[in-house]
């Protein structure tokens, strides 16, 4: 099944008693069946979650499978409701509207700065000769293997030394560069033909100008990939804010807000609230994904080819 054209040839050559098209049709049907099954498996959990988030609490518990409101034991029907959302958005302990703002603010700023810093560093590692370059690169690759959990407490100590706990700084600055992104950019810049820079150099362009005027515009696909990852990673990050924030709930990002929401209801999880919170947390990212889906898909594809 490596490629369509060859595969079709292979099937067509076989001389069964069946009509010549049967193989093709069977294969198409099988293909679509498998794909649709998997697509359903990927999408249905969200569909169930979204639909149930608009149902009444007892209805969620009794009829989670129904995609419309169910019927009570006494025969009266349940109805659609926004109660879960109302409670999630108005609960005293957690400021969801503010968390939405925080998530956007932090993700956007981190994305911009990370793209800038990573590409600068990646370019230096790829093309500029300076002492310690080899060491810096080896050290970077080493950090890729560090389990995030190792850094939990020590990073808190560093942030508290800086006085950044419970401030935006702690949610921003540490994320302005990351080893994976630098690695990605280095790989990319190494794939650009040297001749382009050499020509620019003859014209007397400085490294700085060369980078911003000539190299960076060529790097748009790599930058897009990195921007997508930076945004997505920051938006969904849980451990980062968990470390950086302690008592200032005004700075909670959405994942933290959702984790906190569970605490609000105590041991008995109230699923209307939790599902509504999950939808609120996912919705902005989903909208962005559907608008920029091409870039997401290209971005992910890009890492595989270059990694």
């Amino acid at each position, binding site marked *: 099944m490596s490629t369509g054209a060859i595969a079709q040839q292979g099937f067509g050559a076989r001389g069964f008693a069946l009509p010549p098209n049967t193989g093709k049709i069977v294969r198409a049907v099988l293909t679509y069946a498998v794909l649709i099954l998997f697509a359903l498996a990927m999408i249905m959990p969200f569909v169930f979650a979204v639909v149930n988030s608009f149902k009444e609490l007892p209805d969620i518990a009794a009829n989670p499978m129904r995609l419309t409101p169910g019927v009570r034991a006494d025969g009266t029907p349940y109805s659609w409701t926004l109660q879960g959302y109302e409670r999630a958005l108005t609960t005293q302990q957690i400021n969801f509207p503010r968390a939405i703002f925080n998530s956007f603010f932090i993700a956007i700023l981190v994305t911009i700065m990370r793209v800038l810093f990573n590409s600068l560093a990646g370019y230096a590692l790829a093309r500029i000769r300076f002492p310690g370059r080899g060491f810096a690169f080896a050290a970077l690759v080493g950090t890729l293997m560090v389990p995030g959990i*190792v850094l939990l407490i020590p990073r808190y100590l560093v942030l508290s030394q800086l006085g950044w706990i419970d401030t935006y700084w702690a949610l921003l600055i540490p994320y302005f560069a990351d080893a994976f992104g630098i690695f990605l950019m280095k790989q990319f810049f190494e794939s650009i033909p040297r001749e382009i820079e050499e020509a620019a150099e003859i014209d007397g362009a400085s490294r700085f100008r060369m980078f911003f005027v000539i190299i960076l515009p060529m790097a748009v696909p790599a930058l897009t990939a990195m921007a997508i990852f930076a945004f997505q990673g920051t938006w969904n990050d849980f451990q980062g804010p968990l470390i950086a924030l302690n008592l200032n709930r005004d700075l909670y990002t959405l994942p933290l807000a959702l984790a906190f929401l569970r605490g609000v209801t105590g041991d008995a999880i109230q699923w209307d609230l939790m599902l509504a919170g999950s939808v609120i947390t996912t919705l902005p990212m989903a909208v962005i994904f559907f608008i920029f889906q091409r870039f997401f898909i290209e971005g992910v594809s890009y890492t595989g080819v270059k990694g």
Partner: protein
Amino acid sequence: MAVAAPSLGNQGGFRLSAKAQERLAGFTFILPALIIIIAFIFLPLLSAFLISFTNWNGLQPPTEAAGVGLANYARIFGLDGTTVVRDEFFVAIKNTFYYTLGVVPTQTILALVLAFIVNQQFLRFRGFFRVAFYFPSITSSIVIATIFLWLFNRNGVINGVIGGVANFLGLQYTPVTWINDANGIIHNFLRLFGLTARTAPAWMTETNVLGQTIWQWISGPSVTMLAIMLLAIWTTTGTMMLIFLAALQDIPRQLYEAASVDGATRWQQFRLITVPMLRPTTFFVLTIGLIGCFQVFDQIYVISQGNPAGTTKTIAWIVFRNLRDSQAGLGAALAFVLFVIIAIFTIFQRRLVGKTVQQ
């Protein structure tokens, strides 16, 4: 060649040599990223490393902790004669190992197969399928874990779907308590053949290796862990499929055309063109899959907290537990052991995949 050529316009004033300029440029370019990585990765890493040699309890500033040398590491491997920490560590190794063994091959093979299917030329709606498969990957682990906790509830959707299918086939289905079932799936399988802890031979139930009997070692992941594994596979397969798909589309069509002109069969083409061309991508996917699995934490945190009966305790989870429960020095030491394990596996895997490339 032209690197050393002096530029023409030397308009007076102080001027660095070309080499010094180059160095300065290098430092300047890398400085912002370097400062951040040093301050927020290396410095914490270094302090975690130092902490791993202390008895720090995490309830006071670490400067007040006392050094204990290698005692934390000795406890992890039971070299000091104690067993509590060692046993928990090896339970975590076992759980993490089963988790990885279940997740990494499954998600890689599934992703590869899906990529082949989506790559077929006649396929329509390719864009839709790509988007559908990738969608779970954009969602926060906390959201996914929350939704899965709900889906896997005993009265939840998963049991409902399985029950519905079983009913349709005329079978009886007793709902599984997914999030609280400590039975290992290999044990469950062996039970079908009448082999249980009571009927297993004595050498299995009485030989104790590193705190667990052989019978316990071969338990397989618990049912709860299986649910978490399904979650992980569900989340990451889409991303990996896209990566494979891009690699497949990157293989020059001419290669296949040339091969088919030379009379190569489809299987030969697959073996001699597709497989080698996909090798670097496969290595990449395996490596990120492996590193991700060894670090699994967020899902455990939301869904099971190491329960039931410790069957979802992973290495990252016990690191966290020790940090939180007044044994931060020990937690830091565990974290470094995890770091070394990941490094060894990555290097080993690189060797392995690298070797097959040579053949």
